């Protein structure tokens, strides 16, 4: 009996030690670690050369090795501080490959002083027939903000790919067997060597909410500068970055005023693609500037030229049409209302990153909210004019 007790005690101690040893080990409790393999890469693979202020576009591409169809890609992209990524609309899912959900972009994660990582996630709500084995999952639009060179790499440990597994409803992970990044070189261009004034600006669009602006992507601005009897027009100006400030989407950029020779008493007229032209003449302007000329001062150096914040007087949306067959006429009136109303009645919709002229709030659909915005814009402008 005593021997039996001793044996049992030894067995219990051994079981306890074994259990502790097992607990200390990281066990893989998943039914299967992965059901297929894939390569994840950033394209183009050749060095990308851009200027400061340009948009640097890359694709996050997968290619499975065993015919597995991909329905989700999470890529941790790491890049140098020459680039910045807009967390609101910096990436767009490739709808033709089934990635129809809004791309999620994490806040930037600083790695040391010269590297930043962002996690971008593209997913699909489509059925397996709409998925593919090799495609771009998303387009990522970086802004080139500083001269220099570096690489865009995929951090394999922070990335993940999932897919449709016909044999299991739970085992969806596709193992990433290798990753490939790309390199870039950003030229300072005129910013560094030019003799032209620099306009550093921040602007906002009225009634665009930062958390619901999936289609406010690369909206082109027309910028007119005026001073000392001289004026210059710059078209298709794309702000280099966008960020949420509370509920306001703030777009900013640094524009080289090539061919413009004035550095003081400058006024700037900025027009969005579906907006009235706004006159900005002072820092932190919050309403109409009802005087001739302007009070802005510029320098040749982007680092010292003031950053003018015009977000308190956002661009007024609603100029989408005119009396001559849909050509914008610089007014907000009944023609614009009728134009937007026609689209709102059919709820015209585009995928994330798409463009609809009547989509005044940039949420990818024309609806009654856009009509209400137009009414607000009309009331605001008529109140100013009359």
């Amino acid at each position, binding site marked *: 009996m005593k021997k039996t007790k001793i044996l049992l005690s030894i067995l219990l101690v051994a079981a306890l030690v074994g259990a502790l040893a097992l607990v200390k080990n990281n066990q893989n409790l998943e039914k299967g670690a992965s059901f297929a393999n894939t390569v994840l890469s950033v394209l183009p693979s050749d060095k990308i050369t851009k200027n400061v202020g340009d948009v640097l576009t890359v694709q996050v591409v997968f290619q499975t090795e065993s015919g597995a169809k991909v329905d989700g890609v999470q890529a941790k992209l790491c890049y140098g501080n020459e680039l910045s990524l807009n967390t609101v609309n910096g990436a767009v899912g490739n709808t033709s490959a089934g990635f129809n959900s809004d791309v999620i972009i994490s806040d930037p994660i600083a790695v040391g002083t010269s590297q930043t990582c962002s996690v971008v996630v593209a997913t699909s709500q489509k059925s397996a027939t709409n998925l593919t084995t090799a495609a771009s999952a998303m387009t990522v639009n970086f802004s080139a903000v500083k001269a220099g060179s570096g690489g865009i790499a995929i951090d394999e440990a922070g990335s993940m790919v999932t897919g449709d597994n016909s044999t299991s409803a739970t085992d969806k992970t596709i193992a990433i067997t290798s990753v490939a990044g790309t390199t870039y070189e950003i030229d300072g261009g005129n910013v560094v060597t030019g003799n032209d004034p620099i306009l550093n600006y921040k602007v906002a669009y009225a009634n665009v909410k930062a958390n619901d602006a999936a289609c406010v992507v690369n909206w082109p601005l027309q910028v007119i500068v005026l001073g000392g009897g001289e004026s210059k027009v710059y078209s298709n100006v794309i702000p280099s970055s966008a960020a949420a400030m509370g509920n306001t989407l703030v777009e900013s950029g640094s524009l080289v005023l090539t061919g413009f020779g004035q550095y003081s008493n400058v006024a700037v007229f900025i027009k969005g693609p579906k907006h009235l032209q706004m006159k900005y003449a002072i820092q932190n302007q919050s309403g109409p500037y009802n005087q001739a000329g302007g009070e802005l001062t510029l320098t040749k150096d982007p680092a010292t030229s003031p950053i003018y914040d015009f977000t308190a007087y956002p661009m007024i949306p609603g100029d989408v*049409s005119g*009396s001559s067959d*849909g050509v914008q006429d610089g007014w907000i*009136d*009944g*023609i614009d*209302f*009728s*134009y937007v*109303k*026609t689209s709102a*009645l059919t709820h015209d919709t585009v995928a994330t990153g798409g463009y609809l002229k009547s989509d005044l709030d940039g949420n990818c659909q024309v609806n009654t909210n856009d*009509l209400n915005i*137009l*009414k607000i814009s*009309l*009331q605001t402008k*008529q*109140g100013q004019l*009359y």
Partner: protein
Amino acid sequence: MKNKLFWPIVLVAVVVIIESVLLLSARKQSVVKEATVVNTVTAPVVVEQKALDFTWLNEAGKVTLMMKADRAIAVDAIDLYVGYQGGEVTTVTNLGDLPKPSFQKISKEKSLVVLNYLISAPEGLKLAAGQEIKVIQLTGKETQLSIDPKTQVVENGTAKVLPFNNQNLVINSAL
């Protein structure tokens, strides 16, 4: 040479004098006419293929702007600008045939009454051929009212401007 030119010059001079007398007398007559007429409807500005007419109704001391469809139309928006000269418009009342305007103001600085009607109903405001509606009622004094050229009526579905006729109205006393 002198004899050859003498009579032609005299003839031209006589013609010029007669023309001047005729023109001056005609102008004098029209001034007298304007001064004596209380409500004068000026000649309408004819626009090709017009779809509607703006007319003024001046009765019982009140001026009402009417809009009449010449053919069946559906309207999405009316940007109405009524100009006034000489006197003033003191009040503007939106009459019930149109929805409440999105914007309404008497701009004394620009001598304009501004009303923007935006019609949200999917089919717009439908008017049958010959149908007439009351738009606004104005009060003022000693002024000339006119539909400003900025006025536009926008068609439902097409977002096109419908052509219209309009008239001026002279008010020589307070309403």
